[in-house]
């Protein structure tokens, strides 16, 4: 299956699911246009566009791909992106458990270590950066701008 077709099928499934959800919306009988009216228009429009995308993707008259090789350069490093997403996911999950200061310290240290050169001699520098970032943002936002940062079970 081609990529755009795959995305299209997924989007059509979402449209179908949400359309079914609109049938469950309860609305007072006396109003001419209920709360399900607009979402349905949007869903039908989206489904129509997705069908267009699929048709275009499957059409034999697709734009020919250039024969020239892709621009020279390093291959995308998806491993690094995946690590960054996982570390960030851990940070977001950890914010509500251990609180902003602890979660932020470990996040800054963990992410900079995992996407950086991973040199042990760099570690003290990264620890200092993590401490400074955590302390500076905490002090600026909590003390001076009165923006209350996430509290955990401990702090």
């Amino acid at each position, binding site marked *: 299956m081609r*990529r*755009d077709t795959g995305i299209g099928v997924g*989007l059509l499934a979402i449209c179908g699911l*949400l359309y079914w*959800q*609109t049938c469950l*919306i*309860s609305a*007072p009988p006396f*109003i*001419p*246009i209920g*709360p*399900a*009216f*607009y*979402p349905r228009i*949007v*869903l039908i*429009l*989206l489904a129509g*566009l*997705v069908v267009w*995308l699929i048709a*275009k993707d499957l059409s034999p008259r697709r*734009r*020919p791909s250039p*024969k020239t090789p892709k621009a020279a350069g390093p*291959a*995308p*490093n*998806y491993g*690094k*992106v995946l690590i*960054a*997403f996982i570390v*960030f*996911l851990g*940070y*977001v999950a950890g*914010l509500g458990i251990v609180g902003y200061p602890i979660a932020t310290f470990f*996040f*800054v240290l963990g*992410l*900079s270590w995992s*996407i*950086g*050169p991973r040199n042990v001699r760099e570690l003290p520098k*990264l620890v200092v*950066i993590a401490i400074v*970032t955590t302390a500076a*943002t905490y002090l*600026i*936002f909590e003390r*001076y*701008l009165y*923006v*209350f*940062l*996430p509290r955990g079970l401990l702090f």
Partner: protein
Amino acid sequence: MELALNTFLILFEPTLFLSLCTGILAGIVGGAIPGITITMTIILTLPFTFGMPPLQGLATMIGVYVGGESGGLISACLIGIPGTPSAMATTFDGFPMTRKGQPGRAVWLGIWASAIGGLLAAIPLVFGAVQLAFLAVNFGPWEYFSLFILTLSIVAGLAEQSLVKGLISAVFGLLVTTIGTDPLMAIPRLTFGWEFLRTGFPFLPILIGIFGLSQIMSDLEKSGAAQEELRFGREFNMKVSHLAIIREIFAQPVNLIRSTLIGLWIGILPAVGGSAANILAYDQAKKGSKHPEKFGTGIPEGIIASEASNNANVGGSLITMMAFGIPGDAVTAVMLGALIIHGIQPGPMFVVTNAPIAYGMFAAYFLAHPLMIVLEWLFLRFALPVVKLPQYILAPIILVLCVIGSFALNNIIENVWTFFIFGVLGYAMVKTGFPLAPLILGVILGDMIETNYIRAIMTDSDWTLFFTRPWSGVMLALSVVSFGYSLWQRHRAEQRALAAAATEADVEF
């Protein structure tokens, strides 16, 4: 006039003045670092403005916007990498000029052209925004609905890769706004029983996720980029005669005014932004030049065209934002969010009911330009090494600030999850060729489109009014023209590509 003068003087109050300067400096630094866009910088500034009075917060953001548009030229001229997409065309002549041994001339031509272009755009900003706002006050729900449809059609049509993907992105944005309680009767829709979704997805975490997280992840995937350091330092001689530079700019009045007008117009068009303005202005300067073959070799015309247009673009974006409550680009989208946070409803009534803030914004825009020159001078003299920070240090700090920005909106952790989810979605969209700007615009306009559509139908069930009311009809007709034009442009490009491929195949055979 008295109000305008008073608000201008208020900006010299120490806290406001300091905020404006800080914003400009943040913009310059953010703009000068390749990979950190102005949108990203303004997103990072946002949480700092939560605790400020509205005018102070908005002045800070205008400072970031103006500073960022010119900050991008520093790396464009000195290392050949545009700090922001809006400085892309500056690279074409700025970097060759530096290679010729004139880095100071390249940078200062850009800075002065930015300031002059931006100041020229202040005139239509002050008069245009107010006049357009008065026009928009007379709009009914039919006109608003048509205006929003026109906006969406323009933005979706401008999607670089595929029209249908641009449209899907825009309609998906509309779909996101249907989740939560409906705007007229507050009946929950599409929430799947989740309490958090009852109020719908908040706009700012979506915006921060879509642009911020996806941008960082896109940068990280470039192998080795995380360890990369920028190479410029103090080795450049930046000394120039400022009088000679100004004279050089004013020696090209046609180029200067044309580029300013292009920037202004592109800024007024919703969600197009400085990245298109600078390329278009550069292209027009080249076409209008007596010696187009010299473009790209380090001539001042190219730098002036690019930089005058991208700062004029700021004025244009502010016109659209202040007159209609529609963002001219992602940066003004964040500013709209900031207005809402401060309890100010954007739209045509904004200029009328919040005149001191509106005039304060005009004044901040005007004052930001001369201040930008002074701060760029200080930056070039003392702070250039700041932008040498490697990506692996910058990325975690940026993400922490994005988290704070998302959380601080309502002090709930669910907003951070929204930021994360839409960040993943944004990255997936980038990788699959779906443009981000139409989605954001769909999210911004979704509730307004629904409200105005239903209000129009409830006022008068005759749906032909959308076409027969003059302004509404004109705007819907323009939507069709915009859509048809995009379709025709793409069809022509495909035909050309097919013809080229056929010719190539014949030759090979």
